[in-house]
């Protein structure tokens, strides 16, 4: 894993509306964006970075690339990720929302086979405050410090970052794992990474109803984590959506090995309770719980 200013960052879909909007923001923050890829734009430049028609051309010209940030439209995401993997890029930040889940399944099969880290899809990406912005986070909301933030949300992550920053609690890294049901990286994977990250002293986990990511994270925290964790869950009062038939409940419950109410706020809160993880009632309560965890740590 290399998310530092000493890495090389590529942007796929640099000339798409979202790409064109966020490339200058990332550059302004000091992110080492070395090139953009947009088929048909090869030879042109965008905000001072060269554009290529193919990822492999960028690699050929600029040497190995560490991370690619993907802004291409949803139905082009699968191809963009396969192209990046074929060019031996092993960190993919997949910003785009609306990727058909079967495409995500297919790109993750290839990512697993090649040991490629995929963050997302449907994510604000990653910010290492004071160092590097790999996504859409508003930089002014964050400041360097000891709190690692993991979240399934976008704007709610900004909100939590802002609350921490205002309380004088800077962040070591803020990771949006993505809002989709099928995701490249899980809470569990990132907990493992942050457990070993020297800059991180406490972890904030921002969850949502749906899926079993929080339940699995809670079990993992109880079993394997030494650093303190503070959680928040959005959606306790959300109207119930259409359930995914019998199979939805069945799959989640069989795999998580718990009751079939998996995915509800109750299930997630119970899982955190079992794992003795303090849960904030509201975003503004998070800094207080973090401070308490830091004081005990």
């Amino acid at each position, binding site marked *: 894993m290399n998310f530092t200013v000493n890495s090389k960052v590529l942007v796929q879909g640099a000339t798409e*509306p*979202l790409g064109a*909007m966020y490339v200058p923001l990332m550059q302004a923050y000091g992110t080492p964006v070395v090139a953009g890829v947009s088929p048909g734009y090869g030879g042109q430049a965008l905000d001072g970075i060269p554009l290529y028609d193919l990822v492999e051309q960028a690699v050929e010209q600029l040497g190995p690339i560490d991370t690619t940030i993907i*802004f291409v439209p*949803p*139905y082009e995401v699968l191809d963009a990720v396969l192209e990046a993997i074929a060019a031996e890029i092993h960190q993919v930040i997949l*910003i*785009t*929302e*609306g*990727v*058909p*889940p*079967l495409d995500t*399944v297919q790109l*993750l099969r290839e990512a697993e086979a090649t040991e490629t880290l995929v963050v997302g899809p*449907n994510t*604000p990406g990653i910010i290492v405050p004071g160092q590097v912005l790999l996504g*859409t*986070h*508003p930089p*002014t909301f964050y400041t360097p410090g000891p709190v690692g933030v993991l979240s399934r*949300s*976008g*704007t*709610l992550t*900004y*909100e939590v970052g*802002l609350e921490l920053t205002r309380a004088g609690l800077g962040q070591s890294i803020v990771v949006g794992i993505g*809002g989709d*049901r*099928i*995701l*490249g990286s899980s809470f569990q994977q990132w907990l493992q990474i942050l457990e070993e990250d020297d800059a991180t002293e406490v972890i904030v986990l*921002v969850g*949502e109803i749906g*899926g*079993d*990511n929080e339940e*699995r994270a809670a079990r993992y925290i109880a079993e394997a984590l030494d650093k303190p964790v503070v959680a928040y869950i*959005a*959606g*306790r*009062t*959300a*109207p119930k959506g*259409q359930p*995914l*038939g*019998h*199979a939805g409940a*069945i*799959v*989640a*419950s*069989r*795999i998580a090995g718990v009751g*079939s109410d998996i995915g509800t706020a109750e299930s997630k809160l119970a899982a955190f309770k079992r794992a003795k993880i303090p849960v904030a009632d*509201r975003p*503004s309560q998070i800094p207080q719980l973090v401070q308490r965890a830091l004081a005990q740590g």
Partner: protein
Amino acid sequence: MDLLEYQAKELFHQMGIPVLPSQRIHHPTDLKGLRVPFPVVLKSQVYTGARGKMGGIKFVENTIDAIAAAQAIFHLPILGKYPKVLLAEAKYNPDREFYLAVALDGSTRRPVLLGSQQGGVDIESKLDQIQQVVVEQEFSSFYARRLAIKMGLKGSLICSVSSIVEKMYRLLVARDLDLVEINPLAVSSSGELMALDGKVTVNDAALGRQSDLATLVASIPTAPPAACGLSLVPLQGTIGVLCSGAGLTMATLDLIAKSKGKAANFVDLGGDYRHCCPPAILQDRIRQGLDLITQDKSVKAVLVNIVSNGVSCLQVAEAIASFLKWEAAHRHLPPLVVRLVGEQFHSARGLLAAINVPVFESLDESISHTVSLTTATPALPREKPKTPLVLASA
């Protein structure tokens, strides 16, 4: 988005999954022209697996009984919904009933095949008997045979059942589905298989490349709007909520409930990375969202909570001001409370203060203020509904 039973069965039929002869009934008198021979099952086409217990399924032996039964079903609400159409299907007497499904699983990040020899109406009580096979690599038929073996099947049923599972999988992939379920899969004493009921869940994100399904889904009255359209979710309270991003919207609704307020409805404008509605068009979407929310007469106050990296506070404020200017001239509007953070906050607050719209930087404060507007009956004068007229005349 779920398809109705008859739509799911049409897809089954196209894939070669055996279904019974059937006919759609739009009106009880359609039964006079019934081509399916009696005895026949009439089924209410609504979205629930439990319609049988609620009287939505009836067996009939002749046309007179069928018409009477159809009239009853058309007038029977199931979970509050009346069917627009019934399905008249040949009656089938299964020897056994299996359960089969293909779904996407977030934990393994793979499609999974599910099956049990104990299918039928009480599947929820037999969850622990359902076997599961994760499709690790590219699908191949042996995954389906693996499920059949795990289900405990022997002899020719291994291939006949796995062949149906394979067709369900191919249907899932070909049509970008989230779920294909057959329950029950009838097994006759001779080993013949028949999908008696089926469920298909379409993936909304994929509708843009599944034109057939998009047409089908559009015909369903409760269908959600196209991917990037705005959708108003109605609730039971008095506060309208306009928010950006699903997580923040849920958090906002939670906070309203915690402050003893009640949301009347909400519109989620979406986060910063929807390809079809980039931040550049957020101003338009704010105006549309406010319009949707304020059409609801039960809304006594509106909370706008926008957090975005793509659009400044001032741009949001301008969009709100422009909505108020245009709309307040035509109709009565409930008071607005705005919560903003980020660039140009102070300019934004100044702009909205000039038209008497309070702006907060703290989410908690914005919520307690909004709730107070709907609980304290005598509203403060400066928040009375007609204030925006000041701007309209300015």
